[in-house]
């Protein structure tokens, strides 16, 4: 049978299609595919060799033989620190400097080099020169001072397409070396080469480092401190005007897991006025003084993306000052920090464009402030506030206060509604915790709070991922209540499945909480047409087969439900999972993290 022009053969000839198919496959499949036939070999060989990132292959003689033949197909190469660069490019023979070694790879776009030492400097330089298409380069200068690596620096400077440069974990990068490289690769002048936009100096301890505090690197204004001050002393840090130098085109700076003083950061940033993304996550020792935020904002007014997660050095007040210095902030990541009410208020007051906020496991926070955030952030797309429980009563009180402030003519009886209707991702813990004053509890009984939450959620029609943990704390219903079943328990105990007919919402019951049952008001979430994932982590829910059916039919894009079975009996879980597997096979039920 002649298959030379079959549809399959035609597909094999289109690399873009094969790439798409291969995105859903693993390397073993690529290897298998190359052996099927000659046209399959031609189609899959570049896929197989595209990314090499597993150091153990260097020990495999078969691999070493194969790389000689196919090295030119590699685009992404990740070497381990102690790999031998000799494998990729032979060492120079003899003293004849004119003789050029030939690299096995010449079309790399991304490379993580092995450790840079004076022994292999020439080879690394030649290797880089023979990969002029490099866009992403990672090196570590470990031993000698970087100023001794002139050939290497020269080779880097000649790269015309370099977008990202990383010196993570380096121990000997000097400011003059960085200056030389950036002048050649990150120039803002129209004739210059401004391709380099991302710089990474993560995992570096700058505290006793040849880079110093970057005083010679700074432009326009230099941050210094008094002569006798201890190197961590920030008290005497101040700005002095100096001549301006050529700025660089860097827009992203990563200094994760660094140890450095704020002066270094300020001096570095003074050359990056276009900086828009700054990451200081897990910064080990980063000593700030009070004026730091304003001084940083003076140098880099365009920062829109800021990550200060896992840092302890900034308290709530300082973080609030940082936030208010950057009103253009769109993304703020402060997971596991001392982010608190003041910071939240600062975001509400200053950052109108806030789109992404991650404050997982931040410190305790004022629930009214959270309501204010949801009440005012039109641009919010993603909110992860896991770890702090927000009291829905206080949120409702704030909603009413806001309604009054705005003239009090809202059609919703529950105060000012959430405006963040563009929200796509919401992770939130909410509790119902009435104060000792029982009047408040009577004005805002659980039934009302429940409706409030469901109604607000129902407004989030673009929501794709929802994880809402809610709990009803020690609530005692003192009002008249009839008709509740005694055997129902809403505190996380495993319960019997109700296989009677679908129930309607019990609007007035104070014993029903936000548990995704029809009785609680699940149908109010019918508008969440974009919902793809629902997480029931830690939620005491009352979902039965009826609710699952409704979800599958009402939320056409639903693909995943997490932690369903943790709150129901094993038998019920089995019933639901079997039914769902047969009727809704596209919905995944996931139980582990």
């Amino acid at each position, binding site marked *: *049978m002649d*298959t030379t022009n*079959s*549809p*399959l053969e*035609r*597909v094999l000839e*289109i690399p*873009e*299609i094969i790439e*798409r*198919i*291969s*995105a*859903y*496959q*693993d*390397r*073993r*499949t*690529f*290897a*298998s*595919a*190359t*052996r*099927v*036939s*000659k046209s*399959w*070999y031609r189609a899959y060989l570049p896929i*197989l060799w595209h990314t090499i990132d597993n150091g153990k*292959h260097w020990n*495999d003689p*078969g*691999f070493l*033989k*194969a790389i000689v*033949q196919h090295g030119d197909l590699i685009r992404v190469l990740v070497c381990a620190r102690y790999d031998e660069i000799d494998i990729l490019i032979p060492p120079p023979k003899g003293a004849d400097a004119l003789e050029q070694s030939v690299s096995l790879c010449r079309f790399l776009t991304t490379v993580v080099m092995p450790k840079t030492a004076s022994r292999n400097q020439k080879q690394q330089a030649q290797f880089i020169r023979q990969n002029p298409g490099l866009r992403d380069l990672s090196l570590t200068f470990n031993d000698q001072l970087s100023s001794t690596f002139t050939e290497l620096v020269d080779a880097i400077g000649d790269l015309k397409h370099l977008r990202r440069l990383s010196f993570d974990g380096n121990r000997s990068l000097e400011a003059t070396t960085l200056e030389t490289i950036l002048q050649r690769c990150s120039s803002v002048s129209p004739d210059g080469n401004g391709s380099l936009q991302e710089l990474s100096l993560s995992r570096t301890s700058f505290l006793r480092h040849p880079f110093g505090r970057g005083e010679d690197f700074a432009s326009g204004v230099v941050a210094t401190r008094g002569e006798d001050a201890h190197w961590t002393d920030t008290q005497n840090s101040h700005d002095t005007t100096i001549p301006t130098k050529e700025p660089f085109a860097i827009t992203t700076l990563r200094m994760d897991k660094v140890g450095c003083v704020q002066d270094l950061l300020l001096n570095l940033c003074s050359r990056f006025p276009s900086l828009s993304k700054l990451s200081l996550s897990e910064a080990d020792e980063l000593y700030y003084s009070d004026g730091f935020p304003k001084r940083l904002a003076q140098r880099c007014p365009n920062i829109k993306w800021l990550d200060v997660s896992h840092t302890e050095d900034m308290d709530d007040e300082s973080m609030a000052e940082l936030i208010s210095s950057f009103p253009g902030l769109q993304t703020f990541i402060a997971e596991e920090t001392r982010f608190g009410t003041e910071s939240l208020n600062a975001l509400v007051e200053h950052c109108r464009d806030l789109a992404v906020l991650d404050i997982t496991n931040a410190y305790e926070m004022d629930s009214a402030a959270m309501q204010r955030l949801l009440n005012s952030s039109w641009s919010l797309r993603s909110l992860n506030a896991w770890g702090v429980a927000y009291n829905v009563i206080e949120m409702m009180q704030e909603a009413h206060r806001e309604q009054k402030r705005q003239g009090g003519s809202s059609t919703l009886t529950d105060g000012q509604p959430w405006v963040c209707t563009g929200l796509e991702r919401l992770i939130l813990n909410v509790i119902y915790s009435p104060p000792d004053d029982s009047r408040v509890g009577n004005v805002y009984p659980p039934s009302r709070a429940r409706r409030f939450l469901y109604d607000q959620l129902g407004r989030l029609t673009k929501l794709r991922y929802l994880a809402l943990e809610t709990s009803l704390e020690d609530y005692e219903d003192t009002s008249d209540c009839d008709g509740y079943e005694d055997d129902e328990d809403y505190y996380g105990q495993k319960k019997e499945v109700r296989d009677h007919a679908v129930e309607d919402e019990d609007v007035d019951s104070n014993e029903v909480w936000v548990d995704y049952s029809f009785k609680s008001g699940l149908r109010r979430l019918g508008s969440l047409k*974009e919902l793809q994932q629902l997480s029931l982590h830690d939620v005491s829910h009352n979902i039965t087969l009826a609710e699952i059916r409704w979800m599958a039919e009402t939320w056409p894009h639903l*693909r995943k439900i997490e932690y369903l079975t943790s709150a129901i009996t094993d038998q019920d879980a089995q019933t639901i999972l079997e039914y769902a597997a047969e009727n*809704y*096979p*596209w919905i*995944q039920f996931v139980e582990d993290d």
Partner: protein
Amino acid sequence: MPVTLTSLDDVKFTVDKDVAERSILIKNMIEDVGESDSPIPLPNVSSAVLKKVIEYCEHHRNDPVQVQDETDDPRKRSNDIEEWDMKFMAVDQEMLFEIILAANYLDIKPLLDVGCKTVANIIKGKTPEEIRKTFNIVNDFTPEEEAQIKKENEWAEDR
């Protein structure tokens, strides 16, 4: 406002504009030509395939248009296919690959994705011989050549 599409074998199909515009190629053509009654020629797509493509576009006419950055990172794509699409793709192999080629030519990314996922799932975990059997492929390697390639790529089979 209906739009007429003409297949390779000169068959005309009339569809609603919003359905036709699931194809970015057609969408751009309509924008370039402006309001016009003349049919849009699709010389690369046969009528049998075009019929299937139209069926897909009609079923998915209300899907949100996929944003550029969502489809660009392959690691973010999930491997699952929804039920209707699974049934839609249960066709013979020739048609499967013709649909993929058409989706590529017409620039209908969701359809291309579903097609590619389907093929990826078919190939997954199969040995070369099993793949050949599945697609009726002739092995045009000599035994020596095949052994050579196997040896060469042995490192990749190891996980």
